[in-house]
Structure formats: structure tokens, C-alpha cells
């Protein structure tokens, strides 16, 4: 009888290990991405940038997004509501799955829309610790993925996945040499991410503070609150969605340069 139990336990342990081995980290990352893609959304966010001395800069942003091409393209319009010196500045992005984004920037002082280069994704977004790469969906194929274990993050069991750019050019574009990301086993949504700079030193840490399951969607989630901490200089950037409305019937008119220029 004892022998039977031992065999059964060994068999179960082996099958569990085999199951762990068959988990494809790339699929986890892809699923996590797909689960946060909303067919259409409108929202207001507050971006608080805190420097090493504790000084704060606060930006309010209105955002509208819509998925096109069966989810392969996300069109996003962001308009700055405050502070006064950036009010009416607008950024229109066509975020493609497999090629560089198209981006147009409207600056009220120029009174015209300028098509801007999108390959420099490592640039910080509006002076924050978030980069443009953090604000858009990356091309899954540009990175390699390795499952390195499981860890509990704030009571949530997470897969720990090491993500590395496949080439040095991709690393340069995205501004990191390696990223360790923690995805919840329960819902596959990212809980934490640790970034290493191009020299391999610890650079930034992203923490997901609040996640909301979007009512009316087909099981989609939205990260409502996230914080990026720069471990090298102590700066903190806090991005919080204050209001959100899921809306599959967003009008196409928002994703035009004409609308971008509206005051």
C-alpha cells in the first residue's frame, strides 16, 4: 500500500513538473497583453511625477482608444487637460502589432500637427519615468521569454518571466537590456516588473496597484493604477485612471488629425 502511494505521489509530482515545463512564457505575455486590450475605452488619468526631493508635477490626460484590424491595431488619442502650459497638447497613436507605430503630435504653440518619429520608444513620456514603450503594446516577436519560477507578490501567486530584447537595436529602442515581469497565475495580469538598463544595472520597478475587471467586456481587465520607481535616482511616477468608461462604439472621428487639432 505504501509503495502504491509513493508511486502515485511521484507520478503526480512528475506530471506537475511536466505541466510547468509546458507553460509557454511567451503565451502568458501575449495573453496578458490581449486581456488588457479593450475594444473601446474613454478615460481620464492623473500622472504624478515626484522627483528625488519630493517635488510634484501633476498632469491630467483624457484618453480615448479603439481596436481595429481584429485587435491588431489600437488607435489612441491623448489630450492634455492640465497643467496650463501643456493644455490642448494632443498625441494620436496608431499602435500596430508588428511594425513601428504612427504618431502625430499637436502642439498649440505651433498650431499644427506634426508627424513624429516613433522608433525612439525609450524616451520618457511627458517627463515621467514611464517610457513611450511602457505606454504602448510591444511587438511580442521582438523579445525572448524564459519562465524562471513562481513568486508570491502581494498575496498573489505569479509566474516570473525574464524578458530580453532579441537584438541590441531592439534593446536600444526600448531602453532596457532585461526585464523581469511577474504575471498573476489567476488572471495573467502583470503585477510587477523590474527593468535593467542597457549596462545591465537595476533601473526601474513597476508596481501594479489596482486592476479592474471591465464590465460589459469579454473578460477584459484594465490596470487602473501603476507606479514606476526609478531605482537609480529615486524619482517616482504614478499613473492613475480616475474615470473609465468601456465603450465599444467609440466613433472613428477621434482618431484623426482633424480632431487632434480641436481646442
Amino acid at each position, binding site marked *: 500500500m505504501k509503495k502504491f502511494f509513493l508511486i502515485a505521489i511521484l507520478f503526480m509530482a512528475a506530471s506537475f513538473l511536466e505541466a510547468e515545463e509546458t507553460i509557454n512564457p511567451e503565451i502568458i505575455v501575449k495573453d496578458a497583453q490581449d486581456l488588457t486590450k479593450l475594444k473601446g475605452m*474613454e478615460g481620464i488619468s492623473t500622472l504624478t511625477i515626484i522627483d528625488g526631493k519630493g517635488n510634484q508635477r*501633476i498632469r491630467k490626460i*483624457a484618453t480615448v482608444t479603439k481596436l481595429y484590424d481584429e485587435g491588431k491595431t489600437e488607435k489612441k488619442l491623448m489630450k492634455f487637460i492640465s497643467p496650463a502650459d501643456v*493644455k490642448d497638447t494632443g498625441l494620436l497613436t496608431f499602435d500596430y502589432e508588428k511594425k513601428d507605430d504612427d504618431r502625430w503630435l499637436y502642439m498649440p504653440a505651433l498650431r499644427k500637427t506634426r508627424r513624429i*518619429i516613433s*522608433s*525612439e520608444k525609450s524616451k*520618457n513620456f511627458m*517627463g515621467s519615468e514611464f517610457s513611450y514603450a511602457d505606454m504602448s503594446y510591444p511587438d511580442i516577436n521582438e523579445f525572448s521569454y524564459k519562465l524562471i519560477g513562481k513568486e508570491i507578490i502581494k498575496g498573489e501567486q505569479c509566474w516570473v518571466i525574464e524578458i530580453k530584447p532579441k537584438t541590441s537595436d531592439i534593446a536600444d529602442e526600448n531602453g532596457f537590456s532585461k526585464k523581469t515581469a511577474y504575471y498573476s497565475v489567476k488572471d495573467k495580469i502583470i503585477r510587477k516588473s523590474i527593468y535593467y538598463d542597457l549596462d545591465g544595472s537595476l533601473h526601474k520597478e513597476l508596481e501594479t496597484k489596482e486592476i479592474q475587471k471591465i464590465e460589459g467586456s469579454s473578460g477584459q481587465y484594465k490596470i487602473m493604477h501603476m507606479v514606476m520607481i526609478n531605482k537609480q535616482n529615486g524619482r517616482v511616477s504614478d499613473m492613475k485612471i480616475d474615470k473609465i468608461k468601456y465603450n465599444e462604439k467609440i466613433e472613428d472621428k477621434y482618431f*484623426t488629425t482633424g480632431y487632434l487639432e480641436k481646442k
Partner: protein
Amino acid sequence: MKAYTILIVILIYSVISAQTFFEDSLNVETNSEKENPENLEVNGYIRGVFFAGKVPNKKEAEMKTGYGEISLKFKVEKEHFGGAFSELRSSGGYKSDNSFTNIDLREAYSYVYAGPVDFKIGKQIVVWGRADGINPTNNITPYSLFDFTTEDDDRRSGNFIVNSTINLEPLKIDAIWIPFYTASEYNIDGFEFEKKYPDFNLKNSGFALKFDLTFPSFDGSVSYFNGYGTTPGIDATQDSSGLNLNLKPSRVHVFGIDFSATPDGAIGLRGEAAFSLPYENYKENLYVYNPFIKYIVGADKEFGDFNLIVQYIGTYVFDYEENSIKNPCYEVENFNRLFFYQTDKTTYSISIRGELKLLYETLKMEVFTMYNFTTTELLLIPKVSYDITDAFTVSAGGRVFIGKEESLYNKIDSSLNGIFVQLKTSY
């Protein structure tokens, strides 16, 4: 009858299409329905500016101007039907030895949305063209070169325009009617001009059309302008009191094209060209320039926090002839040729704009430079600005024109060369 039916359908469509949460949120700062039922939004800035420049005909510096200015911007939204916008600027200070107070209603217009048609009427500023800094297709509203200002947008001024935009994505059509003529300001040291501008008359009104297409990776437009140029030429008339210099614009056709593209996401390409053809005979009228083509092709590239735009600018003047010293109006014609960049049959220039953003975009350093290989003239516009905190910025910069004797830049250097410091608070 059919036209009326279409109009009614468009209006009904615009009425029934509800305003979305996103549109509401754009006014979130001021729009609590209970507190602000009129959806009135007020913002603007207050700034102090000091300019120093060059003493005419001497290699010495002098104070040019110092002033304080308030800008009041009002915006009223009437749900999804439309609204109104205005900007009032008031400034006071000293210019050379004289004190001044100035009130300028820069823009004031109302707009209505009717389905795919946006309709604006009133005093407004319109800017066309995809090239950087030099836009030969931009002929709708005046641009005054002769002011000491810290920002390029300050040089623009509004004129009364009836402006309709039809949005048929990816096509956008702009149709503009300019009933009254407004000229760019001329303030050249040592010159007095009488303004001979077109009367308020329907036949003197101008109009413009632009067909704009936007695709992923490429956008561009073709445009046409028909009206009096906002930059007048100088005419000379003789009477009993002697020779009088007059500012007189010529009516022109301007055919334009422009584009911008990011073929691989790493390099941006842009270009713009316009063919200007005056109505009047340039051989018989001193103030009328020769027909010409101006074209610009350029590329922009980002290197981390550094952005670089390089452009090549060419001009070709049709029927070009050397100005003869025997010409009784040699001086005036020479001045017009300088002003309209017609001193040579072909001219070639290069412009470079470099912009570096540091300290998380709070420190911006920018320089725009343009060198004309034909006339060997150089323009330099450097600027440094630092955001002390949100909406509170200190900046310093200048504008330097360098040219050999008898060149345009040499003639205007004491009027326009200057360095400034500015402290600006936005609200």
C-alpha cells in the same frame, strides 16, 4: 431643394449624436455642471519680457523693449453643437524711449459642428504647411517679422475668416473665405510708408482650398490660395511733395503641395512647395514680384533626447533679369527683391533645427539656423527654457541676422537682432 435636404440631414445628425465622456473630460478642470453651467473655461498666461539689441549702424548694444503682458483665453462649449473661443492680449512697457500700452484681440470666433462639417466664423489664425519653420503654402493669416517677440506664434495675427472643414477621413477639405484684407506689420527703422491696401469690397476678398489626406506612414495635401498676399510690396509714387513710398499688396494665385512621412519609423521625411503667380504685370508694377517656386525637402531624426531636422530650401524666379542701376526706381526695386527673396534667379539654403530635452524635459535647448548659400546670409535663433515648476517657465534666447552689406539681413539687423529673457506663468 436637394441641397437643403442634405443640410437638414447633416444638422439632424449632429444634433442626435451625443457628446461622449471623452469630450466632456476635455473640460474636466472647469466643468462641473452645477458650478459652471455655461461651460466657460478661462486660461492664458502672464509674462515679463526684456529685449536688448544692436544700435543701428554701430557695433554697440542697447535696450530695445521691456514689457509685461497678460493673455486671456476664453472658451465656451455649447454641448456638442459648437462653441466660441477668443484670446485677448494686453501689454504695457517701453519700446526704445517710448512707453506703450497695447490691447489686441488676437482671435475671436464661434464654431458649429454639423456632422462631418466644422464651421468657424470670426477673427482667427490659420497655419498651413508641413515643412519646419518655412512654409510657402501658408498664406492665409499675417505673419509679422518686425517685432521683438519670444515665441514664433506671437508673430501671427488673426484676420476675419469664414472657415469650413469637411472631415471625410482619410480626406479633409478646408475651404476658406477671407472677406477683408489684413497685412503683416512692417516696422523698419528709418522708413515711413503709406498703406495702400485693398478696399473693403467683395471683389477684393480672397479664398483658399486645401485637400488633405492622412494615411498611416504618409500624409500630404494640395492647396490653392487666391487673394492679396499678406506681405505687401513697396511702391513708389511721385507728387509735388516728392517721392512717396507706399505699401501695396499684389493679388496672387498660390498653388501648393506638402507631405510628411515616416517610411520606417526611424526617419521622418517632409516637404513643401508652392508656385506663386501674381495677377498683375510684374514688369509694369514695382510692388509686384516675379512668379516663383519655393520648395523645401527635409528629414528629421531622433537620437535619444536630441531631435534634428535638416531641410534644403530652393527658390526659382521666373523671367529673372538683373536690376539695372539705370532703373529710376533702382533702390525701391532692390528693396522689393530683397524682401521677396528675388535677388537671384535661383537661391539655395539649408535650415537645421536641433532640440535637446534634458532633466526629464524640464530643460529645453533649441537652435534654428538657416544659411543661404547664394546670398551668404545666416540666421540663428537659439533658445533655452527651463520649467521651474508646472506652468512656470524662465527662458532666454535671441535672433541674429548676419549678412554682407546690401543684403536683406544686413539692412534689418539693427531692427531685428536681439537677445531676450522671459519669465512666463500660465494658468
